[in-house]
């Protein structure tokens, strides 16, 4: 399957509709930090520049704010195309080019498997430990703790529903 079809299958986004007006790039709050700007991501998808897209920082820096999708005159949703690119990258074993983001998303879903919900302080703590930001995040943790905003983690007795769903998804994806 051509790369743009793979993206389309996962996101319902047809990259060929993009006429390169670059309104998405102009609207993106993080475009200045991305190697490929959102419009370039869309063009690269059209051209089948698979490696460039899957290894880009753009797909991992995307915050999902949806400004690009909201403003596209062609009703294309670059944010959805980038989410599809993240899924494809992970499936191919390509390390997220912004590694902290990959660590955070993985840790987030793992935390959901304990209790169905996340415990925000645990997710934050684990992420910061694994990304080497634990010490620098301590002043913030102290600030939150002293204002009564951190709660102890719950016992992992509530996540049965989510774990079942998660395993069903894994089983289904193994089939295909």
């Amino acid at each position, binding site marked *: 399957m051509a790369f743009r079809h793979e993206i389309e299958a*996962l*996101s*319902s986004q047809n990259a060929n509709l993009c006429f390169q007006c670059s309104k998405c790039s102009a609207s993106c*709050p*993080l475009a200045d*930090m991305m190697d490929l700007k959102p419009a370039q991501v869309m063009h690269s998808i059209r051209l089948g520049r698979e490696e460039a897209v899957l290894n880009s920082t753009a797909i991992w820096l995307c*915050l*999902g*704010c*949806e*400004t690009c*999708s*909201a403003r596209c005159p062609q*009703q294309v*949703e670059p944010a959805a195309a980038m*989410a*599809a690119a*993240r*899924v494809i990258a*992970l499936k191919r074993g390509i390390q997220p080019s912004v590694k*902290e*983001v990959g*660590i*955070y*998303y*993985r840790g*987030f*879903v793992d935390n*959901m498997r304990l209790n*169905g*919900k*996340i*415990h*925000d*302080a645990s997710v*934050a703590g684990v*992420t*910061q430990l694994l*990304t080497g*930001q634990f010490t620098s*995040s301590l002043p*913030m943790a102290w*600030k*939150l703790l002293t*204002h*009564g*905003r*951190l*709660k102890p983690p719950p016992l992992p007795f*509530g*996540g049965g*529903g*989510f774990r*079942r*769903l*998660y395993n*069903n*998804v894994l089983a*289904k*994806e193994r089939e295909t």
Partner: protein
Amino acid sequence: MKYGYYPGCSLEGISAEYDDSIRSLFKRLDVTIEDLPGWICCGTVAAPSMSRLLGLATPLWNVARAKQAGYDQLIAPCSACLYHFKHAAQQVAESPALRAEVEAVLALGVPLASLPPTVHPLEILSADAFESRINQLVQRDLSALKAVCYYGCHISRPAKVMQFDDPENPQSMDRLMKWVGVQVLDWPSKVDCCGAHFSLIKPGIVVDLCTRLFESALEAGAEAIIVGCPMCHANLDTRQDEIAAKLGRPLNMPVLYFSQVLGFALGLSPDVLGFKKHIVDPVPLMLEKCHLSA
């Protein structure tokens, strides 16, 4: 109208004051909300980054349960949760094949057709029907308070998914705040992104984006920022010392949820509304601005 309530993970953790203020506000307005039994996390941007199916099934689990419980609407005060509910519901509505796939992994025996709509509390409260109700209940005059309303990303964007308010210049929160007298200022950053979850991984980016927001709020002459999303609140309230250093000027601007301002105007106490949990204490400003009769 039977309302289900989905607090979401943030409101059980770092943003408990949003939860407290929403519950006490609805009670004050005599609107009954019922907690969605056995709710799970919406999966936010993490689940859809792992797998499309996981990213759809996780939020839809909650919407399916809301249908099972017989709610007419499911209220989600976190705009990120709300976006994922609406987005996933729209995806399965557009594709019968996808719908069947999600129904199979959910295994709840609930057809994912004609799901109850999910709504932000602003959508309920800013409706005309509440204007006179709120006017009758006002106990504190907030007409001396100058504030900007900050909507962030997902209360109304993207329009195709959220189908509420104007995606570029939303008005619902402005309206609601004007009903209780607040001087709502015009400003250009209503729907700019605060950096959301990057607070945990790339705090520098969040500080940069929030610095622009404060610059813009200060230029408009705001004394407070009013928000409707737990992530916007956390980012704006907890990082003001770093932002002040970037701005090169002291910064101590209270950031309040619309539900706290509204609850306060309707006579609820700062304790009930969770004012004490804020890093930037809003109590002095709020007491100074309202002409307290008691």
